[in-house]
C-alpha cells in the first residue's frame, strides 16, 4: 500500500477517527484503480462520443453517423437475435437440467453429472471457439454424421450466416451453462425441506412441484442469470472475430456491435464513432443491470 490517507476532518476526532483514517488507507489503492480504469474511460467515452476529431462538440452527430452506417442495423439485428436464442436456451435448459438433477437424489450420479457439465467452463474465451470450429467442420467433427443428417456437408454450409446465432448460442451455452446449473442446483437445495414435503403431501407431482413451488423460488436466480447473460451476450466479440478468421470469407468482421466498434476505431480511424457505439452498448447493458438491481433488491447496500 503506497497510498496515504487523505486528511480527515479535524473536527471529527472522536473514537472513530483513527479507524476512519485506516479505512481510507485501505481503500486508497482500489479507489485509484476505480478512477483510472472505471471512471476515466467512461468519461473519456462520453467525451469522445459527443465530439469530433478536432475536439469540437457535435451533439449526437456521431450517434447518427454510426447508426446510418450500412453495417449498424445488421449488427444490432445479429446481436439481438443471438441474445434471444442464448437467453431462451439458458433459461429453459439450465432450469430444466437443474430440476432434473435435483430430483435424481443427491447421490454420486448427480454430483458427477454436475462436474461433467461444468468442465467446459475451463475452456472460456478463444479456446471454446476453436473447439467448436472443429465440431462444426464435417471433415473432422465427431458428429459429422449428425451434421450430414441435418444437410450440412461442408464447413461453409454449417457456418452460413443464418446459422450463426444458433452456433454462437451453442458455444456460449457449452462453456457457460455448467456454472449456472451448479448455482441453480445450490438454490434448489436451499428450498426448505418442509415446503417440498407439503407439496408432496398435497399430491403435487414432479411437474406441479417444479412449476408451482421450485421455479417461483428460483425466480431471483433466474433473473440474475438472465441479466448477467444479457450483459455478457451483448458484448459478443471473440466468437465472430475468430470465426471471421476461419470462415473462408463467410462471416464478416462486422457481425457484432463490438466488432463494429473495433472497426470504427482501428480500421476507419473514427474513434468518435467507436466511442458512440461503445456508449450505446454501455447504456443498454447498464439499463438491463439497473432493471435487475431495482427489481430484485439483490444489491441493497445495507
Amino acid at each position: 500500500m503506497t497510498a496515504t490517507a487523505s486528511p480527515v476532518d479535524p473536527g471529527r476526532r472522536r473514537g472513530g477517527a483513527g479507524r476512519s483514517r485506516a479505512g481510507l488507507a485501505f481503500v486508497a489503492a482500489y479507489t485509484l484503480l476505480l478512477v483510472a480504469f472505471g471512471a476515466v474511460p467512461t468519461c473519456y467515452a462520453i467525451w469522445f462520443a459527443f465530439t469530433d476529431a478536432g475536439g469540437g462538440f457535435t451533439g449526437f452527430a456521431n450517434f447518427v453517423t454510426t447508426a446510418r452506417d450500412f453495417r449498424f442495423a445488421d449488427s444490432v439485428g445479429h446481436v439481438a437475435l443471438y441474445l434471444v436464442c442464448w437467453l431462451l436456451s439458458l433459461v429453459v435448459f439450465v432450469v430444466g437440467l437443474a430440476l432434473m438433477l435435483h430430483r435424481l437424489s443427491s447421490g454420486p450420479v448427480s454430483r458427477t453429472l454436475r462436474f461433467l457439465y461444468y468442465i467446459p467452463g475451463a475452456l472460456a474465451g478463444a479456446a471454446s471457439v476453436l473447439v467448436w470450429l472443429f465440431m462444426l467442420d464435417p471433415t473432422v467433427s465427431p458428429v459429422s454424421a449428425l451434421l450430414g443428417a441435418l444437410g450440412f456437408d461442408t464447413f461453409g454450409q454449417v457456418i452460413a450466416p443464418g446459422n450463426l446465432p444458433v452456433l454462437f448460442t451453442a458455444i456460449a451455452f457449452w462453456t457457460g451453462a455448467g456454472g449456472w446449473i451448479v448455482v441453480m442446483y445450490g438454490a434448489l437445495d436451499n428450498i426448505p425441506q418442509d415446503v417440498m414435503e407439503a407439496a408432496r403431501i398435497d399430491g403435487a407431482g414432479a411437474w406441479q412441484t417444479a412449476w408451482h413451488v421450485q421455479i417461483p423460488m428460483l425466480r431471483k436466480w433466474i433473473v440474475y442469470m438472465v441479466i448477467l447473460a444479457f450483459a455478457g451476450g451483448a458484448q459478443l466479440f471473440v466468437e465472430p472475430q475468430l470465426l471471421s478468421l476461419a470462415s473462408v470469407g463467410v462471416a464478416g468482421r462486422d457481425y457484432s456491435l463490438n466488432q463494429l466498434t473495433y472497426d470504427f476505431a482501428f480500421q476507419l480511424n473514427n474513434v468518435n464513432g467507436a466511442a458512440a457505439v461503445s456508449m450505446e452498448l454501455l447504456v443498454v447493458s447498464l439499463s438491463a443491470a439497473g432493471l435487475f438491481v431495482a427489481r430484485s433488491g439483490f444489491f441493497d447496500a445495507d
Partner: protein
Amino acid sequence: MPIETLARRAPQRLLTGAVLAAFAVFFVLPVLWLVLAATKTDQQLVHDQPLSFGSWQALADNWHALTAFQDGAILQWLGNSAVYAAISLVITLCVSVPAGYALAMTEFRGRRALLVATLVVMLMPSATLVVPLFLELNAASLIGTMWSIILPYAFYPFGVYLTYIYFSTAVPKDLLAAARMDGCSEFGVFRHLALPLATPVVALVGFFSFVANWTNYFLPYVMLPESDQLPVQVGVGNLLSSVPQFNPAAGDLAVERPQLALATLVAITPVLVVFLFAQRFLVSGMLAGATKE
C-alpha cells in the same frame, strides 16, 4: 412407496436419465475429442474414428511442429500470459482484499459512494470500455507495454464485492473490537485477524480473477501490436489463421489442425489445473457473489 407409483414413474425416470445423459455427451464429447485430436496426424484426424487415440509419436511430432512455429511463439505467448495473469493477480489481491475489509468493517467518509460505484462498475460490461481504455492508455503512452494489460486486469471490482460480502457476513465485528481493545493497531487487526480468517475468499477472488484474465481476448487484442507480446489466447487465434483448411490464404507457414488442437489444449491447461484445485470453493463462491445473507 406403492408399486403402482413406482411403475408409473419408471418411464419418467428413464426420460430424465436420457436427457441428462445426452447433455453429458454434449458437454464432454468436444473436450474428449480435443484431447484425442492432439495425438493424431492430420490424415488420421480426417480418416480415423473421431474418438480414437492416434499415437504418442504423432503427439510428439505435433508438439515439435507447434513449438517450431515462429521459433517457439507458443512458449513465448504462454510466458506472456503467465506474467500478465500473475502480476495482475498479485495487485488485485493486494488492492481488493483490504478495500473489501475497509468497506465492511470501518466507517469512513465516502464509504457509501465507493460501495455504490463498485456495484455499478461491477455490473458494467468491461468489453464496452476497451476502446476508451485504449484511448486513455494511448494518451498515457502505455500502449504496447505490458502495463496496458496488467493494470486494467488488476482493477477487479467483483473481487472487492466478494471480500466485502465475506467480511460483513462471516467475520463478527466483536472479534475485531476485542482485538482493538487489546491494543492491536488497525493494520494489525487486518493482518493478524481478518486476513487469516479470509483465506477462502482470497482464494476465490484469486481464482475468478486469474480465469477472467487468462481467458480475456478483446483487451490484449486491442492493446498489444507485436506478436511476441501476445498472451496465449490471442496467439492461438493467430495460429488459427495459419491453418489452410480454415483460411485458404494461409500460405507456406501452414499449421496443421492437430497442432491447433494441441495449442488449444496447452492454452487451457493452466485454467484447468486451477479449476480442479478451486472446485470446492466455487459453488459457495458463486452463491456468495449473488446474495448477502
